[in-house]
């Protein structure tokens, strides 16, 4: 800083008025009554993702073409972006600020592109940490179990993964059909997880039958239960066990294991969730004429909206506000189904309007085959009474899946009831991280701050409207004739086009605006950040106003 120059007499002064120094002696910071501060927020998409993927951050890395770093960022919270990128119901996009401007950023497609890059570059996976002594048993190889195994193994803890089936993956393997998640992709996803650290697999081993939970508890330092929901709920109506009536889950399992099923019959699927859609669309591909019967209306269907849309496009018929009342069998074989017509009544505890029968109104349908897809439930035989349950699910006490038994944790559908892949992934990771913290005696991290952020925090003058970039796809005609994957990944050009739409909500992305506009040249532009020189900042707040994304906040002076 310069000094104030004092002349003792006129003789010391220059012969004509001229400048001898700059104005830095004049610390204009004292004029300020409010103070701008750099203050990154948590972007809403991150809060929307159950796994808490740092979406904003990896999108910025993609913009910089730092694909490996972007992939690593996802892997910190989700070990299977190639799978979730294909099947996740993407609640992140529901929270995306851009949705209140034009259309939400296609986060899911970006995730899937990065996931595929990770599979193509196995070298991107870092070595697991130095081997530790403690070991953990993981029961179930669905998304919850795989995720728990991954984060434990990555930390150097040896994991033994127990799975009752021959192949790993849980619902990803035998539930979700190949046209949504091809087996070859799933194989690579699982391979990458198994290669990430010391994981040994014990397939075709049913815990509770082939090996007791107690034994695992005794021989391992911790146990994680991620056994999902294995059984189909029954309709509870006459003749349900006759030939021609099958649980949708069983059917999907057979389709996914390559069984060549005949199917030219008239098929009815009961239910409105993802299972119903997958069963209907699989049967359609096997040549059936398919009708989905659901007891409420389309608005209440729990299936992912785009799945319903695709099913419709492919030619699946829908009959709403009807429920099967009785199955008519001839010679032990299904022949007709009598349906009860329904109407919507008062909302139930899920907030959806409850279906109530319309007195005396029924209709009959000739049906060749009936699939039930009204929900799945747990098979808890191997775990009770040792593990406490509630509502036929495993009861956990904390947010990390702690059960009543000290070293036993649980997560995924077996805890939440039918939920989603990403929630299972999140539960597996959280339990793994908790187990590691217990091993090393570390405290739980503080809870993530939930900042309010909306379109009003975006300076929309800096953006122009654009449509979401969609994944390329095969035509509906091509799609419905086989099990080929429908949606294709983004190439680099599409990927760059879509990441460019991200607002980077609440997080500085070095756009320079604050530094550019500061009337007092009080912002210093550093290599990796900006600094406000409070000796000179007058507190005009132009920087705060012109930040496109509210990465600066205001503090009152003297408080």
């Amino acid at each position, binding site marked *: 800083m*310069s000094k104030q*120059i004092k002349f003792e007499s006129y003789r010391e*002064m*220059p012969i004509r*008025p*001229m*400048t*001898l*120094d*700059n*104005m*830095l*002696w*004049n*610390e*204009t910071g004292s*004029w300020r009554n409010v103070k701008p501060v750099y203050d990154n927020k948590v972007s809403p998409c991150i809060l929307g993702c159950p796994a808490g993927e740092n979406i904003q951050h990896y999108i910025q890395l993609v913009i910089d073409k730092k694909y490996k770093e972007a992939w690593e960022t996802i892997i910190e919270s989700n070990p299977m972006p190639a799978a979730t990128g294909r099947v996740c119901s993407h609640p992140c996009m529901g929270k995306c600020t851009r949705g209140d401007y034009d259309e939400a950023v296609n986060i899911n497609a970006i995730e899937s592109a990065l996931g595929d890059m990770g599979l193509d570059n196995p070298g991107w996976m870092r070595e697991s940490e130095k081997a530790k002594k403690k070991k953990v048993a993981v029961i179930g190889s669905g998304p919850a179990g795989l995720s728990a195994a991954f984060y434990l193994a990555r930390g150097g803890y040896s994991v033994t993964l127990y799975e009752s089936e021959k192949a790993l993956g849980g619902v990803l393997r035998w539930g979700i059909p190949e046209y949504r998640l091809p087996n070859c992709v799933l194989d690579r996803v699982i391979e990458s997880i198994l290669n990430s650290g010391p994981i040994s697999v014990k397939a075709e081993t049913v815990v509770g039958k082939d090996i007791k939970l107690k034994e695992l508890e005794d021989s391992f330092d911790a146990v994680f239960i991620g056994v999902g929901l294995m059984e189909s709920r029954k309709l509870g109506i006459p003749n349900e066990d006759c030939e021609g009536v099958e649980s949708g889950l069983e059917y999907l399992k057979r389709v996914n294991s390559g069984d060549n099923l005949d199917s030219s019959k008239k098929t009815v699927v009961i239910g409105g969730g993802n299972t119903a859609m997958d069963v209907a669309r699989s049967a359609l591909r096997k040549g059936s004429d398919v009708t989905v019967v659901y007891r409420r209306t389309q608005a209440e269907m729990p299936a992912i909206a785009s799945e319903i849309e695709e099913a419709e496009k492919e030619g699946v018929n829908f009959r709403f506000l009807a429920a099967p009342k009785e199955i008519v069998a001839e010679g032990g074989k299904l022949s007709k189904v009598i349906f009860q017509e329904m109407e919507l009544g008062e909302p139930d505890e899920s907030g959806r309007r409850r279906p109530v029968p319309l007195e005396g109104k029924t209709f009959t349908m000739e049906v060749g085959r009936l699939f039930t897809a009204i929900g799945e439930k747990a098979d808890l035989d191997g775990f009770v009474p040792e593990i406490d349950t509630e509502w036929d699910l495993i009861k956990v006490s904390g947010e990390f899946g702690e059960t009543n038994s000290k070293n036993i944790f649980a997560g995924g559908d077996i805890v939440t009831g039918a939920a989603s892949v990403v929630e299972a992934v999140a539960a597996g990771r959280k339990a793994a991280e908790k187990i590691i913290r217990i091993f090393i005696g570390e405290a739980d991290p503080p809870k993530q701050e939930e900042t309010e952020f909306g379109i009003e925090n975006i300076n929309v*003058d800096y953006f*122009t409207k654009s449509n979401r970039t969609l994944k390329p796809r095969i035509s509906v005609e091509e799609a419905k004739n086989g099990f080929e994957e429908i949606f294709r990944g983004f190439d680099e050009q599409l990927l760059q086009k879509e990441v460019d739409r991200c607002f980077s909500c609440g997080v500085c992305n*070095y*756009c*320079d605006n604050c530094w*550019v*506009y500061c*009337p*007092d*040249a*009080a912002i210093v*532009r*550093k*290599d*990796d950040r900006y600094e406000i*020189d409070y*000796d*000179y900042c*007058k*507190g*005009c*707040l*132009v920087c*705060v*106003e*012109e930040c496109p994304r509210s990465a600066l906040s205001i503090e009152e002076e003297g408080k």
Partner: protein
Amino acid sequence: MREARIPTEELMGSGHLACQGCGATIAMRFALKALGRETILVIPACCWAVIDGTFPHSAVDIPIFHTAFETAAVTASGVKAGLEMRGDFETTVVAWAGDGGTFDIGLQALSGTAERNDDIIYVCYDNEAYMNTGIQRSSSTPVGSWTTTTPVTNYKKRPKKNMVDIMAAHAIPYIATASVAYPEDLIRKFKKAKAIKGTKYIQVLAPCPTGWKLSPELSIWAARKAVTSKVYPMLEITENGNKLTVWKDFEPTSFKEYIKPQGRFRHLKENEIEEIAKGVESSWQRLLAREKMLASIPGLDT
């Protein structure tokens, strides 16, 4: 970190005496980033004569010649001539005056310089009133505006003088308008002007939170909305006044939105606002028509 959007050299430093959010200082900061160190400024009486600091200090790291209110252009001509006499043909001489010093009292001197086509850049940072002496009306003050000499009971009824047209009539090689909300564009125009010989006139919209009765953080906002509401068109006139290029590639916004946070327009009634907005639109249409007309005359722009 990504490459900086504008040059990183700071020739205007902190510690200056401008009010919070002053658009005139932003204009100077950008202009000097474009022009570089080989520049001499000539500043007449105006806010900038004060902003720069107190003798013997200056917030600007290049020479400034302070001159009388009405003499910016001719003093710059003189400085340029003096430099050339000493064999310096490189240094850019910039007259930097307010709208009062340009549209009103300095007009005669500017006209003379332009007519002689003296090799200077004349910059009018336009804050649309005599701000330094306490917000008096100038001929740049827009119609409808309050100033201390046009109180709300008798707000300004005459339109802003079309200074750009006056300069175009002098057939000088380069005329441009700019706004502090568009730094890259402003810098491009200053660089362009620096490379051209003869008199260059650049009029920069520089919001004055104090005089506009505008919250200081909205200074850039206003500079942007002035452009997108067509109140302050961004244009360039080249080929000695024969070619007009108007920037049109923006999402239009409303006049009403532009004036809303500005206290200097607060007294306007709905019908008066509509009337003025109509005037804005017809000026814009006239400008576009002029652009087309000039382009349609064969051989004009060569």
